[in-house]
């Protein structure tokens, strides 16, 4: 049997990786991908905990997370397209006109 802790540490590593991606990348699409990575890390943790508690709730939550991630990806990419049309650039730092 694999100890729960292992799964959790893996989940933590994946989450951290995703976070680094959000901050470090200069391409909006890659940023969105990093967010997907983070979501997956969370899914893993949920399933692991669900298994530990012997209930199916973990999977239910994972199911909903996936659904939401799908919706979010769709809308996010639509936004990216709209932004690209505007500025011809995929660099998130280009879009800073809402500053003071």
């Amino acid at each position: 049997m694999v100890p729960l802790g292992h799964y959790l540490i893996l989940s933590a590593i994946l989450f951290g990786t995703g976070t680094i991606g959000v901050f470090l990348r200069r391409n909006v699409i890659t940023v969105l991908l990093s967010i997907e990575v983070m979501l997956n890390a969370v899914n893993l943790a949920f399933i692991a905990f669900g298994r530990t508690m012997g209930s199916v709730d973990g999977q239910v939550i994972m199911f909903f997370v996936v659904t939401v991630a799908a919706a979010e990806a769709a809308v996010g990419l639509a936004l990216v397209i709209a932004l690209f049309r505007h500025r011809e650039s995929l660099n998130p730092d280009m879009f800073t006109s809402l500053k003071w």
Partner: protein
Amino acid sequence: MGTELLLFYAFGAIAAAASLLVVLQRNPMHSVLLLIVSFCALAGLYIGLEAPFAAVVQIIIYAGAIMVLFLFVVMLLNAHREDEVDVGARPVRGPLRAGAVLAVVLVAELAWALVRAAGTRGGALFAGAGADPAALQSVRTLGNVLFTEYSLAFEVTSILIIVAMIGAVVLAKRES
């Protein structure tokens, strides 16, 4: 026992490495493909966790639909290359470095917290006998629970999807 642990390490390593490469790749197309690899590894992990339905959902929806969508957009926007320097972009170094450092901190924190939480449960890593029969009928159980206990969340999610659909269409429309 040993096999499971071995398989875990294998899939885990693949998932971690693929994710890291996703973050580090220069070409977005490569990032997307690597992410698909990561998802597959995670699906394997789910099977190991006796959640086959979750694994299949992961492959079909995540890897199959969402990543394809990403690919569409990448190719649509011709984002093969990442622009190194954009004229007019404000280099935001502060948040970058701070974020990276914090990410490491977070990982450490999470790991420590989660392990401790797992440890305090007295090492009961995997629940008792009722686990295996439940897993075999996981889809049935899942469906049951989904449409009784969580039926409201289910319906709300369907609304969410519709809204997202409409939103995506509206946002991506060409202004005519």
